[in-house]
């Protein structure tokens, strides 16, 4: 049990009669980085949203560090140390970048700590140039980094990132991969992604979803060579650029 | 026995009148997601569209069933063009603009018409039920409301316009892509809702009379019925009217009209708390 930061047992979600996610058992160790991949409709986003509290499971449980957090309120998940980046970026468009990051950091740190964290993140993400601009005015890639920055500001134990490089240029994607690379030792990370280039850049372990279930879980090299995986992706070309 | 009959008739009447004053608003809200705060004034205009011609000698049924809906319907088309269309998607702004329209209409009516208080004697006389007397007009209101709902159901489900309107409501981009003139559909839909409101106002005019501010008596209840019903036009209005109308009338029977009113409002609040998207938000998704 120790070392398991996240676990799901028999997690399911039905929409009407259709099971989008069907009894999934999933485990993530502390400090582990895992990518969730699979064609559209495979259930990975639905699975992800049940962990983040955005969807209520139809069945099964979610455990964080051994404790049942199934269906818990979102702000309590954050309190436990879970940082979430949503598929469609959820940002404070009318507020400046600096203020957004400050609010993120200030929740669980003192004002002085928070200011230090904000400066650190502005430097890491390269956003210091636009720190005073309103988030709504930024380009898409920058907005993704603001959200990533807000997640980091909380200094979470577990980061859940839903398509962090959606809409990014190849340069931006590489930068994001580098960022995540720096983080991987300190915290556990789950990334849902379509962009296989990006997955190759960062991944150790990969979980492949298919039709609401886990098809296989293995290191990236094995997964990419596996005939079953290729078959599942056949016709749904997975190399994606914005 | 006759007391029970009267009771049932009164409850049916309460439900019917609630549905009648709400259905125009429901068409506009359910199909266009527009909250029309001038709805009460459309009812008022419908009332005047009966009272004034009748005073000039026109037959009351003709005024009620033809002139009122036509006049107010056409007015609705004009309003849609000038006030509603520029504000599509801006929910709060639409509420405020239609509120302004409501004030404008009240002001115009007050200035032009002063205070008419007509309609103490509805046509058709009365009928005897056991030891009680019930106005035949009560049955008329119940009957015509049912007929309107039925006609609306058939119209929306079976006619070409109904199909176009429902399609545009569900996915306007797709409809436009298929060559539908969405502007005309919106204008016609709003006009239909206005016409229904005018018709309702005309039907109720002989009972309650018409004054420029009479819209205020209707707007709150109509609003609450439509929101409680949820976005599905007919099922929503029918179910909410049934629930709230019944609560209103039953409580009134047990105590006083004021408490009955409060009970209706309280029931709506509880309903919204339990079903935050209205009755049909959960039950009748996608239907009418």
């Amino acid at each position, binding site marked *: 049990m120790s070392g398991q930061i996240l676990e799901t047992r028999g997690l399911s979600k039905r929409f009407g009669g259709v099971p989008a996610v069907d009894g999934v058992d999933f485990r993530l160790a502390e400090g582990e980085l895992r990518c969730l991949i699979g064609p559209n409709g495979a259930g990975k986003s639905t699975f992800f949203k049940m962990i983040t509290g955005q969807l209520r499971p139809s069945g099964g449980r979610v455990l964080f560090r051994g404790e049942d957090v199934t269906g818990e*309120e*979102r*702000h309590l998940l*954050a*309190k436990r140390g879970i*940082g*979430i980046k*949503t598929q469609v970026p*959820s*940002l*404070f*468009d*009318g*507020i400046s970048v600096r*203020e*957004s990051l400050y*609010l*993120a950091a*200030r*929740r669980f740190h003192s004002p002085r700590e928070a200011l230090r964290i904000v400066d650190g993140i502005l430097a890491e993400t390269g956003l210091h140039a636009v720190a005073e601009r309103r988030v709504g005015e930024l380009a898409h890639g920058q907005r993704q980094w603001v959200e990533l920055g*807000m997640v980091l500001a*909380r200094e979470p134990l577990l980061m859940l990132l839903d398509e962090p490089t959606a809409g990014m240029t190849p340069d931006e994607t590489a930068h994001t991969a580098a960022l995540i690379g720096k983080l991987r030792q300190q915290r556990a990370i789950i990334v849902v992604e379509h962009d296989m280039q990006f997955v190759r850049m960062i991944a150790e372990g990969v979980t492949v979803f298919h039709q609401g279930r886990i098809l296989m879980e293995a290191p990236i090299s094995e997964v990419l060579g596996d005939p079953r995986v290729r078959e599942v992706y056949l016709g749904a070309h997975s190399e994606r650029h914005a | 026995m006759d007391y029970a009959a009267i009771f049932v008739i009164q409850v049916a009447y309460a439900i019917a009148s609630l549905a009648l004053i709400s259905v125009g608003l429901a068409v506009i809200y359910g199909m266009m997601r527009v*909250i029309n705060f001038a709805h009460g004034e459309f009812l008022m205009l419908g009332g005047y569209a009966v009272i004034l011609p009748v005073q000039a000698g026109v037959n009351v049924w003709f005024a009620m069933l033809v002139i009122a809906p036509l006049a107010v319907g056409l007015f609705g088309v004009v309003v849609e063009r000038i006030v509603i269309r520029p*504000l599509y998607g*801006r*929910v*709060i*702004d639409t509420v*405020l*603009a239609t*509120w*302004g*329209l*409501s*004030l*404008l*209409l*009240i*002001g*115009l009516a*007050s*200035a032009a018409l002063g205070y008419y208080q007509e309609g103490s004697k509805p046509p058709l006389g009365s009928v005897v039920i056991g030891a009680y007397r019930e106005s035949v007009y009560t049955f008329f209101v119940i009957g015509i409301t049912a007929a309107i709902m039925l006609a609306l159901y058939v119209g929306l489900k079976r006619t070409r316009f109904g199909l176009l309107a429902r399609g545009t409501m569900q996915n306007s981009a797709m409809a436009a892509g298929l060559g539908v003139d969405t502007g005309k559909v919106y204008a016609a839909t709003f006009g239909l809702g206005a016409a229904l409101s005018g018709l309702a106002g005309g039907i109720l005019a002989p009972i309650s009379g018409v004054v420029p501010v009479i819209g*205020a008596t209707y*707007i*709150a209840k109509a*609003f*609450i019925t439509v*929101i409680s019903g949820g976005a599905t036009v007919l099922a929503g209005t029918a179910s909410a009217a049934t629930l709230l109308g019944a609560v209103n009338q039953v409580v009134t029977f047990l105590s*006083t009209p*004021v408490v009955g*009113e*409060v009970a209706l*409002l*309280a029931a*709506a*609040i509880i309903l*919204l*708390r339990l079903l*935050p*998207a209205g009755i049909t938000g959960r039950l009748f998704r996608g239907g009418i």
Partner: protein
Amino acid sequence: MSNRASSAGGIVIAALGVAALIGVPYVVELFTLVDVAVYCILSILALSLAFVWGYAGILSFGQSAFFGLGGYAYAMAVINLGESTVPVLAGILVPMIFAALLGYFMIYGRVSDVYLAVITLTVSLILYHLINSTSGPEYTIGRARLGGHNGVPGLPPINVPGNASAPLDYADTFRLSLGALLLVYFTLRAVIASRFGRVLVAIRENELRAELLGYDSRRYKLMAFTLGAGIAGFAGVLFASWGSFIGPSVFGIAFAAQVIVWILVGGLGTLGGAVVGTVLIQYLTTWLGQTKALPAMLGLSKIDPSLVLGIVLILFVLLVPSGILPTLRKLLRSRQAAASA
């Protein structure tokens, strides 16, 4: 940059305010004093909505109801107690308690924005119906009759705390009203600049993200809603004292609409705009009700205020949707940008 501008603006307003407090009663006629006093009081009501709607993002049609509750609470208490200090507190607390309960019901029930607005409107109407039906002599709280549609006349105005035989005169009433307005204005500015206020704005911008960051949005919104009710209630107390009267029309749909109009005209998302909008619309309404020249020009016997208010509202929504103050600010900013370019 804009922070310094708003601090400078704040100091100017404070200075002008103090000057007005001291000087205006010497310069101005009696009934103008009375008029200005009520403009200040209604502005406080507007500020409550400006805060709850413009900063916390909660569209409430119930601010006028809290105003009414405050007025009635004051009325009932002051008739029974004779001295005004406790009634003033009652007039602030009663609406706050009511708002806390109603707010808990709606906000923790996660009712959506439109329906929240409808529920607050409905509650106002319920109160309207209830109060209106209390005309009989049996409807009393202690020695005070609720009065039904006649309202509660002859209210003792606010007196100097502790001394019931020293009620405020007209100049003092004006000073109290303006002073209260300044107090509420600067208090709200401080709240908005505080951490609480900043989180509120974030919640308004994106409630999901605020929650994902760990903020319990329900608690913040409830606190804002309750605070707004207290301010509205305070305005209600001042209003009842000012006119020595409170009646059920304050719970009506027309008055609820007026508060919304004030904010819309002045500009949603500003505090100063609330005051501008209130004064403008109220002045316009009063003037229209009294003027003879304009109707004569148009050949009418009088101008119905509803008519003009309606036209103003429609024009504003179509042409100046952000309201006066934000539009002015934008104009100033683009002039500055053009000048420095």
